[in-house]
């Protein structure tokens, strides 16, 4: 398994501002992902965080809105930029130790409310 620390656990933000969410893993991992989860809904993949290169974004998500950094194999950040109430959601960091066919482990999530 992997121990994942995700911060902050929750925040209330003003519209138009930005929030950076941090994900720290206790050991090196190959794959890191960012998901969004609307209340009572399933997880939607935002992007795959690539170490040393630009993140790979899913359809409907763009770098200007959700810039992602991954400076090393244990840390990543997701920024939610120019927030609107529609960005209110739970954001989850997920990691996999190897690239192929293994389970993913999750941080405890960040509950974001935009007012």
């Amino acid at each position: 398994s992997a121990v994942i620390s995700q911060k902050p656990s929750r925040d209330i933000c003003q519209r138009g501002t930005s929030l950076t969410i941090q994900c720290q893993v206790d050991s090196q991992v190959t794959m890191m992902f960012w998901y969004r989860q609307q209340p009572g809904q399933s997880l939607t993949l935002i992007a795959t965080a690539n170490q040393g290169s630009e993140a790979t974004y899913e359809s409907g998500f763009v770098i200007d809105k959700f810039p992602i950094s991954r400076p090393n194999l244990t840390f990543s950040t997701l920024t939610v930029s120019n927030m609107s109430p529609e960005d209110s959601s739970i954001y989850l960091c997920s990691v996999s130790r190897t690239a192929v066919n293994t389970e993913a482990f999750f941080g405890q999530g960040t509950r974001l409310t935009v007012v």
Partner: protein
Amino acid sequence: AQTVTQSQPEMSVQEAETVTLSCTYDTSENNYYLFWYKQPPSRQMILVIRQEAYKQQNATENRFSVNFQKAAKSFSLKISDSQLGDTAMYFCAYRSGNTPLVFGKGTRLSVIA
């Protein structure tokens, strides 16, 4: 593209009884993994059980077991001796190669005392 379908949005079960959650998936791959995750109100996603597609034997983890039917692309979760702490959202998930997990929409399970 791979898809995962959970057709039961909500289910309930009496404490100590057995419940089965359904999951079907669509893929053209031959080698893949299937998972069940539990998400209690705390939001923490917890891995319940995993199944390798190349293994015919169904995976079991204590009170949790799966019925994996590869030809039918079915992957159901059976929870025996249900406990109040099993109350949660349950997500079925699929992974093949280096792609991220693909999740179903989830089943909300309530265990009733």
